[in-house]
């Protein structure tokens, strides 16, 4: 490996043009996974069992009978489809093109279905509730990742997503409880997370302290502060301060009646609908507006941005605050969006998974959402399989998002490159 491989931080267009090489990493990885599925889930799978997938809920207008599939045959067919996709990716790679994201995504879906068919053999599970739960669990991850990428696109690394989620969760619970209105709590969440955001901006943008250090320390600070207030105030008067109402499920009329997808996508709480809006708004704002262009310029090449008259410091301040507010909104999920009351360290490392989702989604809102959904699915699947007592220890399912992320940053699943100036303080010179 040459020197440039150590930290290929610059776009380096020359390298792409001159040293274009055919990389078979992705096809090989997919091929190996496909073969593993064929052997493990298909050929070595239990013979004569059926896998039952429920596809509609009790309250659906259109009822669909549960799918009863022969486990082994279905897994074999799905594995073969996966292998065909791997073969196609090899064709793409041979033409020196990057394997498209959709291909990897479809491969993933097919592979997971093969896995599910094997894992649920002889039992039954509801696909609708599996997907519904996945989406719900993805909410804080997606908001956290969106918040993170708003920071990083402006050149500030946000390790403090965890802290922002936690303060958001805290704010939503306390304010929701005091006012007795979950929607007021929902508004309070981003406001509380701004505390962490403001500190992040103060120390990184104004005082140029290393962004990674500040992020790590702010997470400790957020845990300390919320746990301190929880132990000294919230616990004493839980009825008044820590019993917020929960956000109710608001089915979208009409859309929620679509079979399978309806209940999954449109029978959710307002926080999920806000996520749809946030992803679209951030995508458009970042890639289709002048504001977004400026933000990205600051994140990629602050000197150039400064030269054309963009205020680098102010842009970073704005984005750090905005990003922390967005992440804080995701924090509301933990309290008013699910269990209600606040608990110590209840985010339990989800902020770091959000960080992973941001990276895996390559710093794009849609990508971040996709990665968050993937991680949410892994989490939900782990819960479901835990109940079904399948052969996979649930710890390995819990590990999955982290391992996938390591593979992603190591470039084994396509190349991942963040904003070039992320992590570097900008000093006007």
């Amino acid at each position, binding site marked *: 490996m040459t020197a440039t491989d150590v930290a290929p931080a610059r776009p380096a267009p020359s390298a792409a043009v001159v040293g274009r090489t055919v990389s078979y990493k992705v096809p090989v990885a997919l091929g190996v996974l496909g073969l593993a599925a064929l052997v493990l889930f298909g050929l070595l799978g239990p013979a004569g069992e059926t896998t039952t997938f429920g596809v509609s809920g009790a309250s659906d207008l259109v009822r669909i009978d549960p799918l009863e599939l022969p486990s082994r045959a279905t897994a074999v067919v799905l594995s073969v489809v996966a292998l065909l996709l791997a073969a196609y990716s090899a064709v793409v790679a041979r033409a020196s093109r990057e394997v498209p994201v959709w291909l990897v995504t479809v491969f993933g879906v097919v592979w997971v279905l093969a896995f599910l068919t094997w894992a649920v053999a002889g039992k039954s599970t509801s696909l609708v509730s599996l997907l519904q739960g996945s989406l719900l669990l993805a909410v804080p991850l997606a908001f956290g990742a969106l918040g993170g990428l708003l920071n990083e696109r402006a050149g500030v690394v946000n390790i403090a997503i965890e802290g922002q989620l936690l303060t958001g969760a805290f704010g939503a619970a306390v304010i929701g409880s005091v006012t007795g209105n979950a929607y007021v709590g929902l508004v309070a969440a981003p406001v509380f997370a701004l505390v962490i955001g403001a500190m992040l901006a103060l120390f990184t943008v104004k005082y140029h302290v290393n962004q990674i250090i500040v992020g790590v320390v702010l997470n400790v*600070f957020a845990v300390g502060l919320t746990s301190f207030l929880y132990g000294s105030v919230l616990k004493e008067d839980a009825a008044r301060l820590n019993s917020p109402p929960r956000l109710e499920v608001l089915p979208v009329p009409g859309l929620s009646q679509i079979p399978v997808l309806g209940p999954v996508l449109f029978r959710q709480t307002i926080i999920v609908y806000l996520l749809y809006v946030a992803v679209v708004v951030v995508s458009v704002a970042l890639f289709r507006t002048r504001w977004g262009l400026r933000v990205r310029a600051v994140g990629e090449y602050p000197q150039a941005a400064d030269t054309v008259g963009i205020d680098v410091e102010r842009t970073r301040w704005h984005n750090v605050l905005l990003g922390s507010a967005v992440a804080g909104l995701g924090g509301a999920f933990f309290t008013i969006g699910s269990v209600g009351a606040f608990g*110590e360290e209840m985010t339990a490392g989800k902020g770091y998974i959000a960080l992973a989702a941001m990276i895996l989604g390559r710093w794009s809102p849609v990508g971040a959402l996709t990665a968050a959904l993937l991680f949410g699915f892994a989490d939900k699947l782990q819960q479901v399989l835990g109940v079904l007592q399948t052969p996979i220890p649930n710890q390995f399912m819990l590990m999955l998002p982290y391992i996938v992320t390591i593979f992603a940053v190591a470039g084994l699943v396509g190349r991942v490159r963040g904003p070039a100036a992320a992590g570097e303080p900008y000093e006007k010179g």
Partner: protein
Amino acid sequence: MSEQQAPPPGAAAPVPTRSADPAEHTAGTGGRASQVLREVSTGSLGVTVLAFVLALVIGAVLIIAVDDDVAAAAGYLFARPADFFSAAWSAVADAYSALFRGAVINYRADDLAGVIHPLTETLTAATPLIIAALGVAVGFRAGLFNIGAQGQVIMGATVSGLVGFAWHLPVGIHLVVALLGGVVAGGLWAGIAGFLKARTGAHEVIVTIMLNYVALYLLQYLLTTSLFSTGNQPKSRSVDPSAQLPLLLGDQFRLNAGFLLAILAAVFVWWLMTRSTIGFRFRAVGSNAHAARTAGMSVTATFVLVMVVSGALAGLAGATQVLGTEKFLTDGIAGTLGFDAITVALLGRSKPLGIFLAGLLYGGLNVGGRVMEVSTGTPIDIVLVIQSLVVLFIAAPPLVRAVFRLPSPETKEVAA
């Protein structure tokens, strides 16, 4: 230990502006990162003390804000302001004196053992903190952020524990093998991040964070297997006596030979970083990777080696935790050691002596915080707030100077 912040001979000043050449840019990043770290590590002792004072004051404000007596007195603040202030004072004084009693000397105890018991607990708690922080600091000095001390501590503790209860070796050898097991496990675990950074450019921060969770879930899984656990509890068998670190002050105290290992580790890191060729290479790469490469050093090999050394120390910290203090494994064996180690390394300015003192301070705060929680009801989490604020303030001397209205060093120079 006053020297080492000077860039190595031949190293150019960190590149202030971005250059077009990607290789050059890499060097610039390393230079900038270490420049920041150098800033963290060269602030005056005065700033450290003031940062600590400031953090304690903010902690006090929080304690006052949530105190019931204070709240009651605040109800008639304008009628009798003295009540308010005395209630506030006693809330803070009670909490902080309990913290001191729990961390240093219990002046209320009846016998000598009771009096020094807190101190021995502080030393016990400081042991793994110091060792793990030394590991983090080795990374910092080489320009690498090892955020994965947590995972490395877990892996070290896991393997040390496994050797301790699964193998039955002769006295003496058993302890050494168990300790080595932890060192190797921690080193290899961190080595993954170093290897990936060297081979693919994967950022060590991300990889180490992810490895933290992988390690935790791996341990949780292992604790469910019959190799580790006998009962239904997620708790391993106990380490054989032959693999336990000997107690230093008799059965009354938990203080064990791990503390001596912490001292040895501090001396070793001092020697490594300031007296050895390898340490010179680490620092050269940390100061300016580009210059180091030009001088013929293999930057990628250094990355791997730095991470291995860093992780080995964290692994040793895990080993002392399981072989000395806890004697069996649970999934909470590492507590928040790995993250505390980062703050200790920063507070200790990445230098062995500083880390030793910072580790004692943090160990004391953690131990004292427990006593404070029991005796005054102030949640121990206030300690986390104080700890994190200290590090933030130390990292931003201009902020501390602004708060205390001190002149900046540059102006002083002009005046002189």
